[in-house]
């Protein structure tokens, strides 16, 4: 009977919440909200980093693919003119890191693809295809860190070597 009357009393109590309880509630809610916000921002930034990385990989992949096609066309032009290519060397300028991460570039001849990858994660993998008519490309895997990569056409083996 006493308990019931206390409950009724609380229910019918229309006074404001005490200042200290209000402060504690507000503080807790603020801390939780801030934590959720910060963690969501972190994951968003992480995803944005991978997006930038893939964009960069695609750009460099297309650049390399274009250079391979150009070398292939130069070889075809020379062959059509009845001549022979002594050597073609193109210095490939790739940054050491992309989005602060090191990466690898794999040249695959079957299928004809340039595969960029960072930290062996699927989210960062980008495949760019290339096409050649007169020459073949050797299977190679490069690792970023050295800025001196070369596309070298070996006229004896008719292969484009990457080193």
């Amino acid at each position: 009977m006493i308990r019931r009357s206390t409950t009724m009393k609380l229910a019918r109590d229309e006074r404001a919440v005490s200042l200290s309880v209000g402060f504690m509630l507000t503080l807790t809610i603020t801390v939780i909200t801030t934590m959720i916000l910060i963690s969501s921002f972190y994951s968003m930034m992480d995803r944005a980093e991978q997006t930038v990385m893939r964009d960069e990989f695609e750009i460099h992949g297309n650049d390399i693919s274009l250079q391979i096609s150009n070398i292939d066309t130069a070889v075809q032009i020379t062959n059509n003119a009845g001549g022979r290519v002594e050597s073609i060397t193109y210095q490939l300028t790739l940054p050491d890191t992309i989005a602060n991460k090191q990466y690898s570039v794999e040249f695959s001849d079957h299928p004809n693809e340039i595969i960029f990858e960072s930290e062996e994660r699927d989210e960062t993998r980008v495949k760019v295809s290339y096409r050649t008519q007169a020459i073949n490309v050797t299977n190679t895997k490069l690792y970023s860190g050295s800025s001196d990569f070369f596309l070298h056409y070996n006229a004896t083996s008719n292969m484009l070597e990457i080193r």
Partner: protein
Amino acid sequence: MAHVKQKWQVFDMKKWNDSAQMILIAGFAIGIGIVVLTVMLNNIIYASNTASEANIETNVFDFSNTVKVTTQAYEKAYDNGSIDNSYISNYTSKMAMSHAIAGFIFTLDNDPLQEPYFTQNGLRSGDPDWVVVERINQTERLELVINTSSLGDASNCFVVEALNQSGSMFWSARIFNSSGTHYVNVTNSTDILRTYDIGSGSPSLNITNNTPINFYFDTPTSGEQYRIRFINGDNASGTFTLSGNLSNGQPFEIRRYHVLNTTMSLNKNGHLELNVTIPVTLPRGQL
């Protein structure tokens, strides 16, 4: 009445208090919105700025033009069996200047003139079986001067043949070395029309002028649209002249007296090095 007015005033104040909460919440939402937008915008700017590093060094069209122009320069520099070196050196310096604008270092070098083979590019290593001219309406002059020392035997004989539009041979001259004697066999599609000992050294065979023998070339080719093909061109060296009219009425002329190897080099700041050797048949070796 005064009591009623006072009650309304209290109600208005309470309503005003509720609106303040809404303004606070709205302000907070706008604040978060601005933060999110700023982060997203920042990412977009970051991505679009870092993604503009790619560059293109090779221009194959320039290279193709350079090959063509250099071939023409040698054709112009060829005069009476020799190359005008001052013309080529002038051409090289002009080309070096025009390439310098695009950041290229252009160098050009050539070997001495050689006797050409009857291959496509004039060198022994060139394509031995090739069509010299297609869609001929009339041949005015077809003359070969053969160096008999380079002739192959009957199984690898050098063949000049005329083919009709469907690809069937209807006339041929087969030139070969048989135990030190050099022969030409003139044939139609089925039979040998004439066998003749052309002698040694550098005999001239003027097929359209029927010298030194009747080559039976004019009758089967008249009124026909045909092409002339060389087979086993790597088994014979010498010079040739071929001129006439194409089926579209355009005249054509090929004269091949010499071949020389030119070596071109294009270098761009060490990023791109391109070295090619291109044989040029002179004075006017290709159509």
